[in-house]
């Protein structure tokens, strides 16, 4: 059973290209300074379209997490248990991801984490996080 994969669209293509190149791109608004994740063609704060893509440092902190013991469908059965993270990136935005490079039970609140670019196939590389 194949896992669901993102299908890059007009809003998200640049993000997934960035991931393929090893960079987690955030959008910086030239009009109001807002930094946003995820990618879209306008600033969620001011509506401006002068958005610059800049690579995130990859440093973040775990705001919340939950260790999945019952898989959401057959595609994830082999992975359980795994920790889903809400990571606050150093630049401000929060994103969702999963923990890698360690046991899920090692995850704690406010833990410092670092981006890992995990290549899934030629098209898709997923942003995951390990302990910093």
């Amino acid at each position: 059973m194949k896992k669901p994969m993102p299908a890059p669209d007009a809003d998200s293509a640049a993000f997934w290209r960035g991931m393929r190149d090893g960079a987690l791109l955030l959008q910086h608004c030239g009009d109001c300074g807002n930094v946003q994740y995820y990618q879209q063609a306008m600033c969620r704060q001011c509506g401006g379209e002068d958005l610059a893509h800049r690579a995130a440092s990859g440093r973040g902190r775990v705001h919340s997490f939950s260790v999945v013991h019952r898989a959401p469908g057959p595609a994830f059965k082999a992975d359980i248990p795994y920790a889903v993270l809400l990571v606050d990136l150093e630049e401000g935005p929060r994103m969702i991801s999963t923990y890698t490079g360690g046991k899920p039970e090692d995850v704690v609140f406010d833990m410092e984490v670092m981006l890992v670019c995990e290549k899934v196939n030629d098209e898709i590389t997923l942003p995951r996080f390990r302990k910093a």
Partner: protein
Amino acid sequence: MPSIRKQTLRGKVAIIGIGMSSVGKVPGKSPLWLAADAAGKALADAGIGKNEIDGVLSSHAFASPFHRFSVAFSEYFGIQPTFSNTLQVSGATAATMFNIGAAAIHSGLAEVVLVVGGDSLLTGLTPDLALRSMTESRDQQYEMPFGIPVANTFAMTAHRHMKDFGTTSEQLAEVAVVQRRHAMRTPGAQQTTPITVDEVLNSGMVTTPYHKLDCSLISDGGAAFILTSAEHAKALGIKNPIYILGGGECYTHEHIFLMPSLTTTGAVESSRRAYDMAGYGPKDMDLAGVYDCFTGTVIMMLEDLGFCPKGEGGRFVEDGQMTYGGQIPSNTHGGLLSFAHSGIPGSLFHFHEVIAQLRGQCGPRQVPDAQLGLVHSLGAGFATNATTILGTENTL
């Protein structure tokens, strides 16, 4: 700026009929049949015929192929309404159907609105498909590639609540224990075996901090309601109309990572708007139907709906405040955790219970002299919130 007194729908619309199919495991019945069965019972309860319905609002059904469930329902039921829509804001849909139905009647778009839903998540779908139907509601770009069931989004809010306010797993479990006790007095409830806090904690982890018994059921079932104008209810000679006093909604985000706060939700605003319209506050409510997809959801909602201060929901539940004799008896039928959870229509059962309580029809589980009730529906990791306040004739 001059203050503008808005004309609201407070007291303009009455619920004159309620109906429910069998719930729990109802094999061999389609979502449309479950909805139609409930609708027939609601019409009989109101004492009117199906041709008097001119508006139909429904939720959609996971186990039904129909995109336009409300339209397919009307064909199945043999009616041709002149107002209809299939609403989709996940778990919040139930309260929005009441709010929008009332607005449609108040504005003259319809005179008699059927609010209806039915789904068969237990026998109409395989367990894996039922779970998948829940996961497919998450964004395919930025959420689902990581394997995030909707349960997980709610789990992360509860987890942070535990971290910030010291809420315990035992307090979460107590919600399930209380609601199971409630379900034991509700005829037809799916789960009626008593449970203890220890049993909840030992029921197997689903996604931390939620164990199996912290999670709502998977069920079949439908419910239906007849709404009409207060004048028409009088003309029909309805004995115990229950009035819609206030409604409010709030949509704060789509993705869980853009939820403004993991522990304070749009229910604060949706309920504030409903209370304002009704002219009553949380202390005035005699009972509540609180969307309870997970135990921690109830604790956060008791806070956000104003029944206790932020962060004290766990202790509030532990102190017996959400059951009989407490401040706000909640989910007196057992809720999604113990009565039934047939997907989106699941929160229609909260309406059925609160209305039956306000009518004084609940026998051994009757909340004494219930006059005012609140129902709160929510969904999609707290993305959607909708509140409706209901009252008897005495509260107008």
